[in-house]
């Protein structure tokens, strides 16, 4: 660097910096009255709490319980794995509960949680049943390993709705077992209703890619599907479905109210049922006993933590009734659902 | 970029100023005591120059005489320090090429400025495009250009791309461009140096035609006497930044011109001691090569250099010296002939190998080929020897290797050389690019001399340097000669050549015109030969 110019410029820059700093320090932060009884919870998510479909599922759960437990929520959003551990430590310093909204974070949770034993950790989990010592003692797991039943159910409903006997599936990424399980369960649900239903699948190769998603839904529509089951993290699939005048089923979060004429229903993962129990245990100081008997709380169709909350306008009542019956049957195990891993 | 157009129209148009050739004052251009100095050298020393309407006016002089500088000033590429420029008696200020063009001055550089990928027609109209609405009016442009072509028989295929054209055609395109820009004054810098003989004839004809109607005047920069005399009406001779004389082309012969051009004043000679000559250190037989444009510029050169002698190659640049040096150094493939270094054939072998045999090289392009501008003097000075002891050492490793550089050695080496060669630098850590031209040349000399070569190729070692460093460098060269080294000295400065060389080889148009011992010749004779005035077939030197 040319030193003389440098010297010439140090002064003004430093001045500007100082002035700005002073100005910013000058303006007071909003008075935040400290309520000591409020429970501080830090929510870690890889997207944003008001965006997409996966994260809002967890976020809404927390928000619904906000009044009940007088929560003070901190959103830690858009977290990449490279940053996770540092972040968890920062959160654990300031919060009573840390809520990890995907099992992608499990490793970090395992490493960090033991260091902060006075903090309660809630870990979302999707894949399979786990043993009590899979996680440290201060971690409770909310496990959605039965989600394939939900997909099965949705598939059956879709099969009732469809006129062309052709169903489309948009799967985010090819690899992980669970994404395949969802698709497979959806198909078998459909075939449970009607043997000769055709199902088509498109794999995107990422959870967010509006361009390809829309294109795939379009191509499925061209192939004659009139119901598409979209496992993406954005709504572009439903948008396209709306344009094509076909029906869609979105996963994870209930956004049916926004597209009443397009979305048959959303296979929602309602976390607040389980979260409610955990928080209740925490505020009543019986976390340890609770943890002792529930190291993991499965999401089930039974307590409606796996559910299709609202049906679209296009769903006739008989189908709704059918859905109810089928749900009962699944819960009783009258219909046994295979864990099909391969597409 | 359009604002130049109206002025240019009025200039070529029928406003009073346009009536050029009828006014009794015929000088459409006058340059009054133009002075321009570059650091270390005075390029133009109060030069007067005038140009009549419809004449071809040659500016004659050796390279470095200041011709090009003068014209660059006229064309707005340089700002003059003193002096004034009048066009039709009106004083004008020329800040940029754009101003020059708008005043009707166009310049055709030695190296053409054509846009590759654009067809000829668009190259011609570039900057002066005729438009119909928002679009180019290529039809009109074509009509006009064709009309120009017809008038001055400059036939070029308008749809061809520049890369498909020969050098001569490219030049025609350049001329067309100038004409299309409405040039009244056309400056041509060494136009013939790139042309084949028959193309030259053509060019001459064209120039005659263009000036015949008196609408166009041409300034013709050259260093070739016959052309100057053949082509032009008047000739202005420059030497070392001064104007020597302006003469009517008809009234002079080449002899007088040559004398005027190279000068006659005696300057002190460095005492050259007699050295006993050894065997042939460097020999070149029937060497042929082509330049970057694919033109054959080296047409069978044969010469040899003995140990302990300096062979000076006189000649104006562009006559094949660059290619000769490149081929000897292995930077350019030879199409024919062979190069022998100490009897060993090194034709088309890598530069590293050739240097390994002890060939030193002082390039003409110092910044581009000579130094590492962003590295320290020390690192510059060891370049080439960096693999040898003591600069490379085995460090702590037990076995013999040359992996690690020895900073202290490099530093001391640099220190001693800086003192020895009087390089003006505070410390070896200084960056080379911060040095002045003279010091850079000293740096290169120091590097080449410090590694023991027995053959040195010195390509214009003193050009563009101030007198002090020139003397210094010449002394060094002579010292090396006395140590029995063979030195091939390429230079355009006849004084230098005659002063330094034992024998002088004159190069003209890619051939050795003659090789004579310095005692048997005079500067005038050489001056004539380098300008092609006398075509003596050169004796069969083995």
């Amino acid at each position: 660097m040319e030193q003389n110019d440098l010297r010439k410029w140090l002064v003004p820059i430093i001045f500007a910096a100082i002035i700005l700093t002073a100005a910013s320090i000058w303006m007071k932060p909003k008075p935040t009255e400290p309520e000591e009884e409020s429970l501080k919870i830090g929510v870690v998510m890889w997207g944003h709490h008001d965006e997409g479909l996966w994260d809002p599922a967890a976020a809404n759960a927390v928000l619904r319980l906000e009044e009940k437990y007088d929560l003070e929520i901190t959103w830690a959003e858009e977290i990449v794995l490279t940053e996770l551990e540092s972040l968890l430590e920062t959160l654990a310093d300031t919060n009573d509960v840390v809520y990890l909204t995907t099992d992608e974070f499990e490793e970090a949770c395992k490493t960090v949680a033991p260091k902060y034993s006075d903090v309660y950790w809630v870990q979302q989990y999707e894949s399979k049943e786990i043993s009590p010592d899979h996680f440290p003692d201060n971690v409770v797991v909310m496990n959605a390993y039965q989600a394939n039943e939900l997909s099965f159910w949705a598939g059956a409903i879709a099969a009732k709705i469809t006129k062309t006997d052709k169903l489309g599936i948009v799967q985010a990424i090819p690899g992980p077992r669970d994404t395949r399980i969802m698709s497979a369960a959806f198909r078998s649900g459909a075939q449970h209703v009607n043997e000769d239903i055709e199902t088509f699948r498109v794999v995107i190769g990422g959870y967010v890619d509006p361009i390809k998603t829309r294109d795939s839904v379009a191509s499925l529509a061209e192939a004659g599907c009139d119901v598409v089951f979209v496992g993406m993290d954005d709504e572009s699939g439903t948008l396209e479905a709306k344009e094509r005048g076909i029906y869609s089923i979105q996963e994870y979060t209930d956004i049916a109210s926004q597209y009443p004429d397009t979305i048959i229903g959303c296979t929602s993962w309602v976390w607040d049922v389980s979260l409610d129990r955990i928080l209740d245990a925490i505020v009543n100081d019986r976390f340890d006993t609770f943890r002792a008997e529930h190291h993991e709380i499965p999401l089930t169709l039974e307590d409606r933590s796996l559910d299709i909350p609202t049906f679209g306008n296009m769903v006739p009542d008989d189908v709704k009734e059918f859905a109810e019956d089928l749900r009962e049957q699944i819960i009783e195990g009258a219909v046994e659902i295979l864990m099909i891993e391969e597409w | 970029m359009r604002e130049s157009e109206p002025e240019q129209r009025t200039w070529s148009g029928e406003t009073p100023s346009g009536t050029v050739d009828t006014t009794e004052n015929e000088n459409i251009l006058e340059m009054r005591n133009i002075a321009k100095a570059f650091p270390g050298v005075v390029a133009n020393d109060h030069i007067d120059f005038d140009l009549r309407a419809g004449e071809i006016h040659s500016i004659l002089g050796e390279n470095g005489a200041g011709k090009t500088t003068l014209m660059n000033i006229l064309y707005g590429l340089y700002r003059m320090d003193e002096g004034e420029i009048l066009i039709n008696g009106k004083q004008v200020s020329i800040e940029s090429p754009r101003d020059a063009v708008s005043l009707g001055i166009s310049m055709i550089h030695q190296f053409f400025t054509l846009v590759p990928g654009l067809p000829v027609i668009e190259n011609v109209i570039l900057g002066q495009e005729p438009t119909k609405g928002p679009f180019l009016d290529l039809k009109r442009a074509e009509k006009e250009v064709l009309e120009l072509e017809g008038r001055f028989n400059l036939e070029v295929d308008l749809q061809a791309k520049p890369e498909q054209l020969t050098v001569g055609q490219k030049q025609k395109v350049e001329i067309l461009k100038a004409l299309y820009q409405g040039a009244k004054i056309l400056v041509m810098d060494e136009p013939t140096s790139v042309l084949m003989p028959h193309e030259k004839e053509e060019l001459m004809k064209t120039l005659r035609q263009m000036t015949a109607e008196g609408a166009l005047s041409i300034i013709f920069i050259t260093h070739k006497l016959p052309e100057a005399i053949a082509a032009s009406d008047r000739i202005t001779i420059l030497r070392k930044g001064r104007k020597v004389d302006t003469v009517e082309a008809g009234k002079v012969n080449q002899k007088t011109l040559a004398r005027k051009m190279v000068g006659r004043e005696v300057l002190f000679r460095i005492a050259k001691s007699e050295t006993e000559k050894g065997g042939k250190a460097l020999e070149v037989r029937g060497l042929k090569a082509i330049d970057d444009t694919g033109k054959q510029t080296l047409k069978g050169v044969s010469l040899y250099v003995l140990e302990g002698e300096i062979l000076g190659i006189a000649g104006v640049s562009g006559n094949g010296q660059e290619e000769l040096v490149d081929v000897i150094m292995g930077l350019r493939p030879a199409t024919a002939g062979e190069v022998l270094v100490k009897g060993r054939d090194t034709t088309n072998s890598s530069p590293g190998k050739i240097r390994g045999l002890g060939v030193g090289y002082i390039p003409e392009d110092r910044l581009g080929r000579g130094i590492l501008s962003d590295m320290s003097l020390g690192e510059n000075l060891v370049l080439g020897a960096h693999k040898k002891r003591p600069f490379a050492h085995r460090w702590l490793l037990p076995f013999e290797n040359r992996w690690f550089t020895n900073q202290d050695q490099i530093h001391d080496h640099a220190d001693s050389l800086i003192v020895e060669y009087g390089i003006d630098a505070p410390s070896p850590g200084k960056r080379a690019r911060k040095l002045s031209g003279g010091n850079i040349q000293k740096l290169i000399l120091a590097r080449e001399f410090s590694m023991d070569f027995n053959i040195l190729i010195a390509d214009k070692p003193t050009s563009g340097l101030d007198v002090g460093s020139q003397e210094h460098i010449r002394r060094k060269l002579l010292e090396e000669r006395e140590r029995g080294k063979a030195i091939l000295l390429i230079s355009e400065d006849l004084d230098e050549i005659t002063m330094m060389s034992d024998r002088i080889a004159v190069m003209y148009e890619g051939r050795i015109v003659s090789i004579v011992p310095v005692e048997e010749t005079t500067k005038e004779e050489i001056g004539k030969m380098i300008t092609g005035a006398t075509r003596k077939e050169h004796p069969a030197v083995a």
Partner: protein
Amino acid sequence: MIPEAIISILSFFPVIGLAALGGFLSQKSGVWNLALEGMMAFGTFSGVFAYHYLGQSIWISLLFGFCTGFLWGILLSVLCVRFSLDQIVVGFGLWFITEGMAGYLYYTVLPSVRITKTMGPRILSLDPIFYLTLLSFALLYVVMRYTKQGLAVVATGENPKAADAAGINVHRVRFVCTALGSAFVGLAGSYLSLVILQGFTYKMVAGYGWTAFALILFGRWTTPGILFGSLFFTFLVGIQTRMQVAGIQFIPPEFVVVLPHIGVILALSLAGAVGKKAGMPATLGVHYERE
């Protein structure tokens, strides 16, 4: 079925097309624009931003995205053309800044926005922007080919010395081209957020900016080449999904986006191997100063 498929494929052509077009314009005048991806990202943000704050009009928002792109372009050209900083480095810096700023600003100054309006009149169920893109390609072709401005741009990119000697203001030409090009890139971005996704998601550009960059090189710096290149790519994506529907997996979905990149490397190496000019503007990335 067939025309329908083609239409649905074409409907996201503008994103790639506009971005490639913008980058092409600045490269033609001799300035790398390595910040394509970032500028697109910022375009996505500014589109949503304008939609939220400037009265919910798609058209105005697109215009706003265009303008922000223009501003970034001005910054780029000031740094590269006026200050003669290295274009590669500046490109990277701007990429960082724009992408960072887009994400940062969106989540600080905006609530989550959902675009409810849709694009204006549709012709053959393709929205105006599509035709606008084709139009601007045609326009660019004509300008480059048949106007003196186009001549000036080409001359500037190929041989600034000649252009300067012919009285063309090299710096001004580069300035305008870079700024305008970046504006198109911004437009592409805001189209992505406003029409394709109808909302904003982080990382929604998903590498398409660099794909556009690759397509410029793949099209060998000619307007038709780039047009067909981007069309080809769009169809590639479309066909790949349709093959999947048909149950054929002829290439993993992850690789579709980088096919142009591979193509570029092959094309350039081939051009180099046969010693042919790749058609790259001669002084691309080289700063010009009169001596």
